């Protein structure tokens, strides 16, 4: 993932960013997290924290509304199952719609970052 630097200060700065951008990114990460097979919410949270260094999850709880919204949009499917420690847990898996969204979402995310990066690296007000 492109964003890897991680301290609390950066996270606060991230909050100022467009909430849509933030949410869109989180949705993509969730889709990615379940792209290898069904996972419950805690596992998804852990994975995102590991790969993103806690930057994208300000409070682990924010993951759940995002998950439920994806479920409502039928990008993920949920099923109750039994976890590794023998407890009832809600497992999410990628639907075919979700797989498609992950593909298109990832490529447009890269396009966006690339374009924004170019613009932010600009050194003069006039177009190159």
């Amino acid at each position, binding site marked *: 993932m492109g964003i890897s630097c991680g301290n609390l200060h950066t996270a606060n700065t991230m909050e100022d960013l467009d909430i849509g951008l933030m949410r869109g990114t989180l949705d993509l990460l969730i889709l990615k997290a379940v792209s*290898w097979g069904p996972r419950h919410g805690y596992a998804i949270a852990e994975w995102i924290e590991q790969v993103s260094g806690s930057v994208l999850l300000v409070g682990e709880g924010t993951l759940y509304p995002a998950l439920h919204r994806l479920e409502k949009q039928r990008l993920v499917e949920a099923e109750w199952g039994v976890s590794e*420690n023998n407890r009832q847990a809600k497992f999410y898996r990628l639907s075919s719609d979700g797989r498609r969204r992950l593909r298109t979402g990832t490529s447009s995310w890269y396009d966006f970052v690339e374009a924004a990066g170019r613009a932010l690296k600009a050194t003069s007000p006039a177009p190159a």
Partner: protein
Amino acid sequence: MDSSSSGTPRDRRSRIFRLEDGPRRVERDVDEEIDFHIQMRTRRLVDSGLDPAAARAQALQRFGDLSAVRSECLTIDHERERAMQRANHLEDLRQDAGYAVRTLLKNKGFTAIVLLILALGIGANTAMFTLVDALLLRTLPVSHAERLVTIGDPTRTGSLSEGSPRADLASYPLYADVRAGNHSLSGLYASGRAGRLDVFIDHDSGGSVRSGTEAEHPRGRFVSGNFFSVLQLHASLGRTFAADEDLVPGDDPVVVISHDYWQRRFAGDRSAVGRTIVVNGTPLTIIGVGPAGFTGDIVGQPYDMWIPLMMQPSVMPHTEWMDDRGISWLMLMGRLKPGVSVAQARSDVAAVMKRSLVDNAKGDQIGAIERDLRDDPIRVESGARGFSYYRSAYSESLLTLMAAVALVLLIACANVANLLLARASARGREMSVRMALGAGRLRLVQQLLTESVILAVAGGALGLLVAYWGSRTLLHLAGGSSPIPLDAQIDGRVLIFTALLALITAIFFGLVPALRATRVELATALRSQGRGVAGTQGRPGKLALGKLLVIAQVALSLLLLVGTGMLVRSMQKLQNADLGMARDRLAIAEVDAQRAGYDGPRLVALIRDLVARMERVPGVTGVSYSENGIFSGTESGTTLQVEGYTARADSDTVVAYDDVGPAYFHTIGAHLMQGRDFEARDNETGPKVAVINTTAASFFFRDGDAIGRHLTVDSTTWEIVGVVADVEEQGVREGPQRRVYFPMVQMERQPGRFKLEIHTNGDPSRIVVPVRRALQAADPSLVVLSVDPLNHLIGDSISRDRMVAQVVTFFGALALVLAALGLYGVMAYATVRRTSEFGLRMALGAQPGDVTRLMLREALILTIGGVVIGLPVAIMATRLLAGQLYEVAVLDVPSIVLAIIVLSISAAAAGLLPAIRAARVPPLEALRVE
């Protein structure tokens, strides 16, 4: 990869049961999910060395705002849940509909019969509703119609009364008084009949008629200049009457035509406005076209043009209707001022009207006027639905027919319910299996009802076709020779009515069979293998319900048949009533000589000339003439003093009268009881004589001879020279009236419009054309209004009764067929069900005849049950027909007996086929079925 993500759901069935967990499931799921997360995190932190309490605190802290997350998740999940439920319902419905259509298509015969029954039942109701709506319910297409009020009798749309002033119709001076004197109306307009108009459209504006052009006869009406402004209507082209028009007689030769007439006659040509047409010889300029869809303020009588009242003397020369308080011919309609109620307007208008009538009455009339007004208060009523003659004339007939078709629909419902019931029995196993597999009863009922609704909707759609055709047929039947021009369209209201009716029908015939079909005892149903009727067979309630439905059908049919019998018998009596004259040998010609300018002695000479010419027409054996004539719709009345008779009340001196020609009674075939007929010597110079009818003779001269006594009318005295048997002159139902006849030539003035009575030696319809030709030959400018055989006129006068009788007969027959079908169905089903019983009976020695008798007896018991229930209902209900019956008692035994006989024969016929089939089954085979 994290190991925690590798867990897969082990048991998918657990999901199925979760679904049924009830309304709090969403909350529980969210709580459980969050709880799982906190516990997992706590455990991980404990593993990393924290003590449990601190670990839990930190886990909660890392989670963030728990209650906010929880409520957000719940909101999302609830929305999702609702969306899924909606989708499920739609899916259920789609599945049910698809399944129903497939099932119905598979049983084509069943579906076709049900659709036919429903189409007839619903269609008949829609057709009747179309007419009821057009005539009784719909308001005028004007804004705020509810603020309109009619003054006087709103049914006298074509009336003209000469004589003493009236309050139910207005003279022009009375209208002017009420218009100026009232305080409750923001506007008051008047409209009156224009009679037949001779209109020439293709001509130069000078008014001279181009030779060879035929006169047209559009329907026109005189209206006051504020007609359109009171109704708040605007011209769709050109303008309506201006405020300064219609103030001075003859000053404003203008006319507004209806939108419909503009389309019909001028093909919607905008240059029609500004053209001049010649109406009865008077050129009028078309100044505008009325709004689309507006055909006037009279329901059932659409108008083509509206002419200012002040043009009446010009358009109808030789008639002075504008200044004479004795000529009542105007209908009044006003618009209430804001805040004024109909009751307030009534007392205001009545006071103004009474003052006007009293102020202008001669001294001795005032008492009579006040008495009249006390007996018949001035009518001020809501005018929202406009004026209508047909409304009052036909509402009773229409409601009778509406009741008849509602009965037919009920019978149809019972019939379809029975068919569905029989089929439900056949589907008993299917239902049992589906319920055993977990389908809810409600779900199955819903599915069966979907089928009913689809049947009803399809039946309703077909019914609309039936209605379209049916309502037109009804108008044709009702109008006799000319259909009633009622605007009977299938519009939004009719569609809504039909849709609702179809839905109600579906529930009516669908619900009970659906509930029955799904009330299955699973064990019984599943245990009995193979038989189609298994699972429902042997349940006593099932067949009893079918029998109940048949009994209900028989009862309803009986009701309809008794009513039909009464109306048909009444109709026959009307058709063959002895009217006291030679109805089969008479033709009546109506002539308007006034317009051609005849008056006084010239008119008398013309009449004599016409009689002489008629007598020379081959086939004519006698000719006379009269002012009002027979079945003409016009009538005269007067008060008189009778020598030797003292009146106890004013009404005792009232008689109907007619002025007639020589040999009048001989010509029309009336029976002279005493004295003589009018003769040629009863002329202008002869002594004034009169003939009275037997009703008048026995009323005035209870104890003695009428001949030679004297009558005084308006200070002229007449000697009675004859008494004639009562003649029903104006209507079969009219009943005897006191009637006096005078020689027309002895009257002060002769009418410009009169009738010729022509007696023939053969079919009177054969002389129609020669008579018309002979009349035209006398004077081509003479207007021959009509020449008709008397029986046609009589037929037209009872066309309403004939229509009701014909339509009710049709529906009565339909009901009979439906009831017979229902009975047949039940008997056939019973036969199949009891095959083994019959086999056993025959094996034990019963003869085929015994079995047949057994079945017939059962059919007969059902019929008797229906009759026993239906008879009292029929006797009560047919009382409502009293007003429409002619010489048929309210408790009409022949009709009742006939209905029962017809029903019994139909029942026997319906039961016979299954009964014979039952007896034909070979015993062995019958026994093997079990």
